[in-house]
């Protein structure tokens, strides 16, 4: 079942037609996801001034916390790149190790996000408080849901293939999971800019 590393092609993730299909299909899927997030961003931008009498962005956001979250997620993207490099070198152990590190950093990010939501709720910003609140929680929450799904997905792969070695079947699975992970990272960069930097600045 496990193939020796030296027989793997240069791009094991798209060496088979199935892998090639998955690779392309996943890129298309991310195109759709882009529109999904763009719609949520548009909604947020239209409503971010509508705080009613509830707390607004400037009252709530602290860049220290968001900076830590950003660093965690950006670093997790880097470790997932290392995982892919390991995969292409044929180092199964390296890939697994870097992927676990990615998961750990993702969990750290998620923990801070839960803390953040809990804090804001504590400060009087419930989901139903204002149009700003609804759009903020929906945009950032949808991102958080994506992170959660990604963590579940990668853990599933890591446990399922813990002893399998790199195969032409699982290479494409790991690769698409990493693509997904990069995508949530990119979305976060926009959230950081549009939600937090603009929110503190304005």
């Amino acid at each position, binding site marked *: 079942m496990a193939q020796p590393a030296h027989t793997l092609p240069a791009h094991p993730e798209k060496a088979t037609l199935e892998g090639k299909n998955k690779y392309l299909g996943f890129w298309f899927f991310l195109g759709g996801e882009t529109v999904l997030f763009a719609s949520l961003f548009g909604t947020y931008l239209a409503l971010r001034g*509508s705080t009613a009498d509830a707390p607004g962005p400037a009252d709530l956001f602290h860049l220290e916390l968001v900076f830590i979250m950003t660093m965690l997620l950006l670093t997790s993207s880097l470790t997932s790149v290392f995982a892919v490099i390991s995969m292409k070198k044929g180092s199964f152990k390296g890939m697994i190790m870097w992927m676990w590190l990615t998961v750990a950093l993702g969990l750290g990010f998620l923990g801070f996000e839960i803390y953040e939501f809990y804090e804001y709720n504590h400060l009087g910003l419930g989901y139903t408080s204002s*149009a700003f609140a609804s759009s903020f929680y929906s945009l950032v929450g949808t991102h958080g849901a994506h992170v959660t799904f990604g963590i579940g997905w990668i853990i*599933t792969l890591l446990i*399922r293939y813990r002893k399998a070695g790199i195969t032409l079947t699982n290479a494409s699975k790991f690769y698409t999971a990493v693509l997904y992970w990069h995508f949530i990272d990119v979305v976060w960069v926009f959230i950081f800019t549009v939600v937090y930097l603009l929110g503190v600045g304005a």
Partner: protein
Amino acid sequence: MSNSSAAQKSVVWDWLTTVDHKKIGIMYFLAGLFFFTIAGIEAMLIRIQLMFPEMAFLGEQTYNEVLTMHGTTMLFLAAMPMFFGFMNFVTPLQIGARDVAFPFVNSLGFWLFLFGGLLLHVSYFTGGAPDAGWTAYAPLSTTSEGQGVDYYILGLQVSGAGTLMSGINFLVTIVNMRAPGMSMMRMPLFTWTTFVTSMLILFAFPALTVGLLLLMLDRTFGGAFFDIGLGGNVVIYQHLFWIFGHPEVYILILPAFGIFSEVISTFAKKRLFGYSAMVFATMIIGFLGFMVWAHHMFTVGMGPVANAIFAVATMAIAVPTGIKIFNWLLTLWGGRIKFTTANLFALAFIPSFVLGGVTGVQLAMSAADYQFHDTYFVVAHFHYVIIGGSVFGIFAATFYWWPKMFGYRLGEGLGKIFFWLFLIGFHLTFFIQHFLGLVGMPRRVASYLDGQGFNEMNLISSLGAFMMAVAFIFLVVNVIVSRKNTTNVTDPWDGRTLEWATTTPVQEFNFAQTPLIRDLDALWYEKMNGNGKIKAAEPLDEIHMPNGSILPIIMSSGLVVASFGVIYEMYLLIALGLLINFGCMFVRSIKEDHGYHIPVSEIKKQGGES
């Protein structure tokens, strides 16, 4: 399961678990036809209610529900799935593929669509269907009583997810699975329109997903997106809806354009005139389709600059569409035209659709639109493009591909009666509605008063609708009585494209050997320059096939369970439904399913020589 053919299964189990694009195509088509019938009956109820002034046939609330369901069902559950049926069945054959790129996802997409559609229709039995129009504008939809609108939101959300998946599937299939020699610029036009349509689906549907999500959050979870008191803004919904909604109308018309291109060139016995112009016109229409959404909102108050920009962009679409119309006419020019039923629908489409296009440009003039807005003029316009374009396309394709899909030819005599009754009925119903609109009858009203000059025109319109209903009965009769026409079904029209090179019924692996494509209109080229048979690109070898799976149905029902949880605010049910759904995804992810192989002896036994 890797070296023998699939074990014998019962027929029902086979269809429930199938991942064969041809069976899924047939199921899409039949399910679409089912919903088409329901929405057609709803249309008849509407026209009976409006036949005479102050009719008390339906009552206002029921009228609103029937009106909403007619539009929603026709667009999402009838027209699109019927096109999907043809796309699924025909596209892989036209590009010489053994299947689509993701057979499992294909099946999942179908079951999500079907379950979403059925979920929407459950609302009739649980206290009232949605009543906020097919657009479900906030705040009308967010304040609508009862659960009707919740069914609308969740039903469309579930079926929309299926549509999105199918769109991605077609894109990857067309990019990756083409047979050797089938370059992009040798693809049949129907495959091209499938490609561009899928692109539109991919980039349009997520906007609907978010629009519906916001409605759901407001209605069920106390969100404040559309609550003016808390700073909400209802126009956001209109933007999101039409960012989806306008590409959606091109999703409905582009496949029809592809069908007409195939039908017209086949029955004119000529290569399609201006093939590359047709391809680029399709792409330009697809692109511009995303640039014009706000022409649905001219009267919202976006200001003269925005209105002017969207007006000009809208009018620009007439240019590529005009290119197409002229190319069809020039394809016919000098051709040996055969007036089969399929071709009659294609020929009738040209003037009918041009009429709809002309009123489209009229409506695009934003200043004039203040006058036309929300009148029957708009109703007449979009029925001209959707019936005169999409529905004629569906009927042309039905007659054209029926022999390949079902193994018998539909009768031409009955077909022509159907065509003429439908054509005359259609124009009788909708032509006069232009004038109803111009004299001021508003759309979406359950009734009207006597003495406003609406009476005669409404009566004529309703009579036309009855004619269309009678025509449809002729189609149903045709489907039943034509079953004996089982001769000459392999290539009944002397076809040009690859699907006519397969056997009828098409073998599960489509082509015993992957075909070699030597020109545009691959089969016609071989008929003219070869021995009439497609050359093989590979030696006869065992064929790899995917295994069927029951997971798509379980996943879809999981989402239906979760939807009921949202509709009735039962959080345990939501959790259970999502658990079923994600559980299936988990199983699918950890179970490596490599399919099976059909041995050479089996292929030979099925007559798969080429």
